[in-house]
């Protein structure tokens, strides 16, 4: 307990003062013709005091980070209108601006806020979207992300994924000991919460589909166990501690089952656990390695990694008494599959020689397209809108996170100021 307090204190001291983000997200490559947009400074009802949050700054950062927008710098704005009628359309047109977001933040009598915003097409002088959202003080950041989601969807046609969270594991050395921590953070790197900290390895975080729980593997007690932790309360249960390996948890879409890898029967095999009864159903039966099960979005199939052919490759099995069918044929190494939200492709770790890349396997035609340069990329996970894949990459400074759009046109780097960061898992849409 004492150690914990001390650690969090050190942790706090190490954070930069200006921002409390650990993950510093930078766009390293965007699309060639990003959409021009301006986000005006939001109006604030208590003009005598400073607004509790800079909504336009958060929305600007979200849209910029997506790589699909060219967002005007705040100091370049010719005006910051807060109402439709105050927009000087001809000034904006002269600057070649196509879209503008305007909005207001109002403190209500109850101490909560009313956030309103409008997305306006400058050339047509027409409102594309407009909403008023009531918000409690602690949810203002979330509302800003929801606004970003709406703007993103209206202008790109793709569902936004700004109002989502990412789980990841960090490892840092302190007094020659390694400290493993499972964190969650908002998709923009803010609002970091520590879920578990251990001197023994932690791995394989997996979100439940409702985003309320995380399953993970912990080596506390010098052997592997699978835990399920409630994100809000921090309470957790050990669901699997058999002899041998207990690992690779993955939630069923209905939240009632967990697929996992166990070696209790003498070899690594895939099982499905009924979370109510804790009963197990064995899915694979093979001498080789079978691991990394992941549920298809329709809940009917599992894909997994197996070396039954001599090298790790991806297999699919229909849960109702199916025989495993090999899916990947290109490359000497294909492992750690994750389904795209539409179930039409799988992202995985791919190698043809000495370098490991993030790739996408198209399930319609079996082709594998390589997304990243390697050499040591791993743990890919789709954003819930399917547009980006987040993954871990190893460089000279250790593990870092990065994200790439599925068409390879947009690249982001999610920097951590110290230590290793690994195993990102993008959570579901927040309700």
């Amino acid at each position, binding site marked *: *307990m004492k*150690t*914990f307090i001390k650690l969090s204190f050190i942790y706090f001291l190490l954070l930069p003062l200006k921002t409390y983000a650990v993950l510093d997200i930078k766009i390293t490559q965007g699309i060639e013709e990003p959409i021009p947009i301006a986000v005006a400074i939001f109006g604030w009802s208590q003009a005598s005091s400073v607004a509790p949050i800079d909504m336009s700054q958060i929305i600007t950062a979200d849209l910029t980070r997506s790589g699909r927008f060219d967002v005007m710098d705040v100091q370049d704005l010719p005006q910051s209108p807060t109402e439709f009628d105050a927009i000087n359309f001809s000034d904006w047109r002269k600057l070649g601006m196509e879209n503008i977001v305007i909005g207001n933040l109002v403190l209500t009598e109850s101490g909560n806020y009313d956030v309103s915003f409008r997305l306006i097409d400058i050339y047509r002088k027409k409102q594309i979207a407009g909403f008023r959202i009531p918000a409690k003080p602690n949810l203002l950041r979330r509302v800003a992300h929801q606004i970003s989601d709406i703007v993103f969807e209206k202008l790109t046609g793709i569902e936004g994924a700004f109002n989502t969270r990412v789980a990841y594991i960090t490892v840092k050395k302190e007094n020659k000991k390694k400290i493993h921590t499972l964190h969650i953070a908002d998709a923009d790197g803010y609002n970091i*919460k*520590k*879920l*578990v*900290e*251990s*001197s*023994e*390895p932690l*791995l*394989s975080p997996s979100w439940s589909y409702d985003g309320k729980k995380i399953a993970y593997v*912990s*080596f*506390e*007690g*010098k*052997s*592997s166990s699978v835990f399920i*932790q409630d*994100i*809000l*309360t*921090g*309470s*957790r249960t050990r669901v699997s501690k058999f002899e*041998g*390996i207990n*690992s*690779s948890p993955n939630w069923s879409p209905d939240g009632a089952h967990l697929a996992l*890898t166990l*070696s209790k029967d003498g*070899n*690594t095999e895939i099982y499905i656990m009924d979370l109510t009864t804790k009963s197990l159903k064995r899915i694979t039966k093979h001498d080789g*390695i*079978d*691991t*990394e099960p992941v549920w298809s979005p329709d809940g009917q199939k599992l894909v997994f*990694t197996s*070396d039954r052919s001599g*090298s*790790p490759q991806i297999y699919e099995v229909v849960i109702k008494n199916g025989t495993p069918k090999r899916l990947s044929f290109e490359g000497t*190494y294909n*492992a*750690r599959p994750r389904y795209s939200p539409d179930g039409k492709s799988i992202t995985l*770790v791919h*190698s043809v020689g000495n370098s*490991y890349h993030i790739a996408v396997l198209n399930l319609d035609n079996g082709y594998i397209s390589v997304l990243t340069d390697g050499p*040591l990329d*791993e*743990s890919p996970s789709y954003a819930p809108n399917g547009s980006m894949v987040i993954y871990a990459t*190893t460089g*000279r400074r250790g593990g870092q996170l990065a994200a790439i759009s599925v068409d390879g046109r947009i690249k982001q780097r999610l920097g951590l100021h110290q230590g290793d960061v690994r*195993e990102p898992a993008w959570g579901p849409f927040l309700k």
Partner: protein
Amino acid sequence: MTIRLFFVIGLAMLLLGCSKDQVKEEEPVEVTDLNADSAVDSSEDGAQTFGAEDESSSAFSQLDDPQSPLSVRIIYFEYDSSEIRSDYRSTIEAHSLYLQQNPNTSITLEGHADERGSREYNLALGEQRAKTVKQQMLLLGANSSQIRLVSYGEERPASDGHDDASWQQNRRVEILY
């Protein structure tokens, strides 16, 4: 080869030296409650016990002889392989014989992998390596109840580097008495 052998022996001696007087404790794990912003004690009853340092001198045995094949405590593997190289035959024979002659002694075989590729696959690979060693030891006279397996996959590298030399050091099974 000679240099390599000395390294292995040196490492084995080092490991022996450590294990003699180290009191191993289970490290506590902190679980954070996001509501209360405070830690929930994960241990069942909140109490933590400590043992006094073991001051009784340990008996000498042939394990301490650096010339003995028993002093080799690490078996290295090729990439993505759990096959035991023939040069480790005498090592495994010696440990099996020792276990057979000392039925009350037990060991842990700790399987490891290098960092390349996926973590979960490497966890399974580490276990397969440990399992292969165990199977050979059973064939050579050890009893199943004397051997515990654990795999750490790529999570506990012997060397933190990202190059061939480090990876070579990390693809291993450690024999822990």
